[in-house]
């Protein structure tokens, strides 16, 4: 069932991709092939593979329960927010929170999560910023 659904989604993606390729504005200085042919080839392969998934699906994978899907979704949001906040709060502060969240969700106690957040943030800051001189995100406080 998952594979059939995946095949349908794949087919839709292939069609959208081909449609997007068809509206590429070609310049008057084009080579014989142009910018559309290679995308059409890709869309064909993708579409054929997707049709195959619909016709001959594999066994279903073990999908996680709803709670676990929520877990993945939450982690994604936290990481996206982390990316947004990096330049706002600076590397160290945002990393402490992001690491602590992940460590907590991976089974650490809340206190240990915070500890591992602080150590990870300071550890990375020391190694990559202070020793190796890499540029990390700077917040208003300069770190």
């Amino acid at each position: 069932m998952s594979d059939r659904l995946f095949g349908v989604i794949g087919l839709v993606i292939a069609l959208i991709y081909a449609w997007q390729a068809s509206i590429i504005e070609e310049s008057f200085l084009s080579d014989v092939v142009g910018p559309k042919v290679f995308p059409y080839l890709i869309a064909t392969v993708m579409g054929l593979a997707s049709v195959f998934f619909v016709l001959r699906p594999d066994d279903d994978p073990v999908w996680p329960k709803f709670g676990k899907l929520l877990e993945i979704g939450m982690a994604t949001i936290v990481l996206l927010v982390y990316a947004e906040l990096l330049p706002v709060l600076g590397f160290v502060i945002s990393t402490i929170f992001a690491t602590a969240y992940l460590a907590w969700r991976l089974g650490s106690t809340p206190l240990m999560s915070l500890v591992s957040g602080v150590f990870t943030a300071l550890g990375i800051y020391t190694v990559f910023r202070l020793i190796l001189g890499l540029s990390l995100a700077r917040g208003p406080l300069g770190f």
Partner: protein
Amino acid sequence: MDVLGSLSDGFLIALTWENLMFALLGCFLGTIMGALPGLGPSNGVAILIPLAFTLGLAPTPALILLTSVYYGAMYGGRVSSILLNIPGDEPALMTCLDGYPMAQAGRAGEALAISGVASFVGAFIATWGLVFLAPQLVKVALLFGPAEYFALFTLAFATLGGLSSKNQAKSAFAAALGLAFATVGMDDQTGSARFTFGEVHLFDGIDFLVVIVGMFALSEVFIFLEHHKASDLKQVEPVKIGRITPSWSLIKACSPTMLRTTGLGFIAGVLPGAGASLGSFIAYSMEKRLVDKQGTFGTGDPRGVAAPEAGNNAAAGGALVPMLALGVPGSGTTAVLLAVLLAMNITPGPLLFTQNPDVVWGLIAALFIGNIMLLILNIPMVGLFTRVLLIPPRVLMPIVAMISFVGIYGVSGSTFDLMVMVIFGVLGWALRKLDVPLVPVVLGTLLGYAMEVNLRRALTISDGDYSVLVGSPLAIGLWAVAIVGFVFPIIFGPMLRARMHAGRESDPKDLTDE
């Protein structure tokens, strides 16, 4: 003899203090990454590429660092196989069969030692194979025109799933997806914007480093988030290691095995579609058939540990041959190494040998040095690496995630790229759940540009005549191999897979490396 001359020049490059230090660092980090369950050679190297890049390393030291990590991870993969019966990566799967029984019998130290020696023999001899075979392949590669290159890229994708591939349609879909990512951005030849949806950040295209780190490193974090309850059970008390230096008689007893499997593994590595996991598998099954007179294989026979380890390390060396000489990698990890080269603005392939001989031969010399370092590191210090296994994933995985962010942020300094990376991480997780291999996606993103350029160049030369794509015997040969390589697993795959997994009670699912 000029191969040896070039090689000695290579040693002059590799034997500077700086490069030796990078080799040592790489070997050390690589062994740790290989030993950690959930961090294989491809994710290990993937996380480090953006870092090596942002640190502003010159191409040679950067390559030395990262290939040392690659070799180191191949060595390290055996540690968790032997001690925990959990392969660190797929090639290490076969090592579990005899390694874990040896550990249970209190001979863990011996198993680690003999597998270390076997890894050394395999990798060392394979590096010699690389020295002599790669320049020959370069001569062939010089005959390639754009049409042949297009066929060669197709061949690489067709055979990437490997002989044991489960579902070729999924491999094909994955490759197409990767190629589609590569087409995003400004088209070089006409200046048309493609698939940018008006988003300014996409005009430059999607950086392949973002794809690689997202797919390989971040998706691993999501996998652990999903399974964390199960993975906490793996907390085991340290196994008694026992004697860690191999006795001469043991080495002598295993020598014929090691030499035979090295040859076999090397060939498996060079051929498209085989790679290290098949290398270790055929090495083990051949030895079992040849020398297992008393039926001791599978119950803790040292030869059963030596065979797959020599085989997979030799295959790792062999896989570098097509990667360096043709610019077409045959496995996940070599795909990541290709990314290293591309990030350094070096295009592998025949021209690399003529234009940047210092890079190639410096790298090969570094492999020899790295091997010796790894042997020295691995025999006496294996106790240290076994400690690494005690780091719980709940501490490790957040660190992996954060280092991924640091690397990508260092390359681009853009929040947008970080978000794209997170999205690729989730996508990678979903694709892994659906059993879609990630390696073709990554390889497609890497090679898409070159593949399209070659197609268009071939057709421009022929003035739009598509028959040019099958216009030479060489091209026809490549297409034939591609078709056979794609069809073969559909027919023989299920049988081969059943044999590879026979004898192991737990089926390790979530492995990135092919």
